[in-house]
C-alpha cells in the first residue's frame, strides 16, 4: 500500500513493476490513487473529520450544503460528509473482508476440484452450477435470513459471510479452469511422487500458481461486495443504525426529504458509485496487465 510513497526503499525489480503498471495502465493507476485516498480517509477519519458521525444536532437538521457542512446534514442534523467518510470505513472493511473470504474459499474449492478431478470434480461443479443460478443478492438475502446478525468487534460477521457466499461459486469456476492446466505440470507429478499429502500439494504447489487470476477477481469482487453491502443496508438487512454506511444513508428517511434535502440522496450514492467504479477499473487494468490473453 505504501509502495507509491516509499518507492526508493523497494528492491529495483518491484519498483520497476510498479512503474510499469503506472505507465501501461494510467487509468488503473488513477483508480488505485482514488482507492488509496478513500482508504486513508477511512483509516484516519478520527483526525480529519470535525464532527462526530453519530452526534445528533437538532439545531442543524436538514441544513443545506454550506462551508460548515459541505454536503449538508441529514434529518438528525448529522454531518453528511462526516458520515460518508466514516461510511468508507464500513464499505471498505466489509468489501475487502467479504471479497477476501469469498475468493479464498472459492480458490481453494476450485483448485481442489481440479486437483482431485473425476467424481469429486463433477459433484463440486454441479453444486457450483446450482449456486450460480441465483442472482447474487438473492443468495445473500437467503444467507442473511439463515444466519441473522452476529456482531464481533462492532462488525457483523454474518453480513460478511452473506456477501462472501455468492462470490464463492463464481471464483471457484474461474480458478478451477486455471488450475486444470496446472495439474498437468510435471512439478505436480514430482510432488506426488515425493509422497506429499493432497493438502500440501493443493496449498503449497497449486494455489501459488493461481495468484494472478485470484488478485484480479479479488479486486473486481471488492466492487461487487461494496455494491451488495450498500444494497443490503439499504433494505435494512445489512449494517444497522446508527453506524454510518452509505447504503443505510439512502434508506429510511432519505426518501421522505426528496424536496427538502436532495443532498441526503445525492452524496452517499456518489460515494458508492465512485468506490465501485474505482475497484472495477483497477480490476480491469490488473486483468489487462497480468493476463496478456485478455488483451484486446
Amino acid at each position, binding site marked *: 500500500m505504501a509502495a507509491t510513497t516509499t518507492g526508493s526503499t523497494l528492491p529495483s525489480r518491484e519498483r520497476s513493476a510498479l512503474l510499469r503498471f503506472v505507465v501501461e495502465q494510467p487509468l488503473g493507476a488513477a483508480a488505485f490513487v482514488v482507492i488509496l485516498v478513500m482508504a486513508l480517509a477511512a483509516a484516519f477519519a478520527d483526525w480529519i473529520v470535525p464532527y462526530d458521525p453519530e452526534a445528533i444536532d437538532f439545531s442543524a437538521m436538514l441544513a443545506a450544503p454550506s462551508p460548515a457542512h459541505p454536503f449538508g446534514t441529514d434529518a438528525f442534523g448529522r454531518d453528511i460528509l462526516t458520515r460518508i467518510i466514516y461510511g468508507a470505513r464500513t464499505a471498505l472493511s466489509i468489501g475487502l473482508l467479504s471479497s477476501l473470504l469469498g475468493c479464498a474459499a472459492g480458490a481453494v474449492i476450485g483448485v481442489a476440484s481440479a486437483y482431485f478431478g473425476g467424481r469429486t470434480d463433477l459433484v463440486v461443479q*454441479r*453444486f457450483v*452450477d*446450482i*449456486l450460480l*443460478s*441465483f*442472482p*447474487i*443478492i*438473492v443468495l445473500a*438475502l*437467503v444467507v*442473511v*435470513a*439463515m*444466519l441473522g446478525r452476529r456482531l464481533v468487534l462492532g462488525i457483523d460477521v454474518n453480513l460478511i459471510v452473506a456477501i462472501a457466499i455468492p462470490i464463492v461459486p463464481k471464483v471457484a469456476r474461474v480458478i478451477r479452469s486455471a488450475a486444470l492446466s496446472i495439474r498437468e505440470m510435471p512439478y505436480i507429478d514430482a510432488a506426488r511422487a515425493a509422497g506429499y499429502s493432497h493438502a500440501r500439494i493443493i496449498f503449497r504447489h497449486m494455489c501459488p500458481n493461481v495468484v494472478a487470476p485470484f488478485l484480479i477477481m479479488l479486486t473486481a469482487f471488492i*466492487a461487487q461486495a461494496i*455494491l451488495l453491502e*450498500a*444494497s443490503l443496508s*439499504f*433494505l*435494512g*438487512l445489512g449494517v444497522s443504525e446508527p453506524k454510518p454506511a452509505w*447504503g443505510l444513508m*439512502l434508506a429510511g428517511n*432519505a*426518501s421522505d426529504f*426528496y*424536496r427538502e434535502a*436532495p443532498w441526503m*440522496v*445525492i452524496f452517499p*450514492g456518489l460515494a*458508492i*458509485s*465512485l468506490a*465501485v*467504479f474505482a475497484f*472495477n*477499473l483497477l480490476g480491469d487494468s490488473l486483468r489487462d496487465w497480468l493476463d496478456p490473453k485478455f488483451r*484486446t
Partner: protein
Amino acid sequence: MLRYVVNRVLLAIPTLIGVAVVTFFMLRVVPGDIVEIKLRGDGGNVSREVIEQERERLGLNKPLVIQFVDWMKGLVTLDLGRSMWTGNPVSEEIGSRLELSLQVAVMAAVIAVLIAIPLGTLSALYRDTAVDYVIRIVTIAGLAVPSFWLGMLIILGLLWAFNWLPPLTYTPFYVDPIANLSQLIWPALAVGYRYSAVVARMVRSSIVEVMREDYIRTARAKGVFERLVVARHAMKNAMLPAITVIGLEFAFLIGGLVVTEQVFNLNGIGRLFVQAVSRNDFMLIQSLVMLIAVVFILVNLVVDLLYAALDPRIRYR
C-alpha cells in the same frame, strides 16, 4: 434440431431438482427454531404448548424428508403451502404480485436491448474516437451506479423538472395503459441501465472481433456497401455472444428489482422477498427463491435453444 431441444430440456430437470434440494435444506440447517424465533422474537414469553401447536400447524414436526416431499408435491400442483406470517397461501401472495414485477422486468429488458445494440455497434465502428470514449464511459458508469440510487435520482429529477411524482398505486396495463406506464417506466429505466451497459460492452467487443474476420474483408473486396457489410455480415455473427449476455443478465435484472421496487414503493416480487427475509417467513422464501431460479433456468434454456436455431454448428455437434 428436435433431438437437441429434447436433450436440452431434459438436462434442465436435474438442475431444477438440485436447486430445490439446495434451497430447502439451506434454509433448514439454521441453528435455532423458526417458530421460536417468530413467537419469542420480541422477548415475549410463550409456553411450550403454544410453540408445539404452531409447529404442528406448520407441519414442522414431520421428518425433514417428508417435509421436502410434501413441498415437492406442492410445487408440481402449484400448492406452495401457506405464508408463515400472514397465513395466506404462498401461491396467492406471489400470484398477486407477479404481474407487476414481470412487466417491469420485461420492459427493462426491452429498453436495455434497444439502447445497447445501437450503442455497442456505434462504439465498435467508431473505435478509439470521441464517440467510442463517450459510450464507453457511459457503459462503465452503468456498472458502478447502483440501480436503486439511480431510481432515487430519477425521482429527484422528475420532482425538479416537472414537480411530479410517479403514481403510487398499481394499475394493470389492460385497465389504463397510460397510468400503468407512467408508474412503471421509471423503475424499468433504473434497472435497465446496468443491463444495457453490460450488453453494450459485449456487443462492442464482439463486433470489434467479427470485423477482423476474413469474410468481412472478402465482402468489402467484392464491393459490398459498408452499411451492408455491417448489417448483413458483421451484425448477424456478432449477435450470438450478445444473446448469451442478454440471457444471463436477465437474472441480474431480477436481483436489481429486489432493491429497486423498494425505492418506487412497488408491491412486487422483490418487495415480497425482502419482507419474507426480514420476517423469517421460510415457506415464502423457499418458494420465491425457487421461482427466481426457475426463471433463470428457463431463460438459459431459451437462450440455448435460440443459439442452436441461429447457429447450425451447435445442433450438429
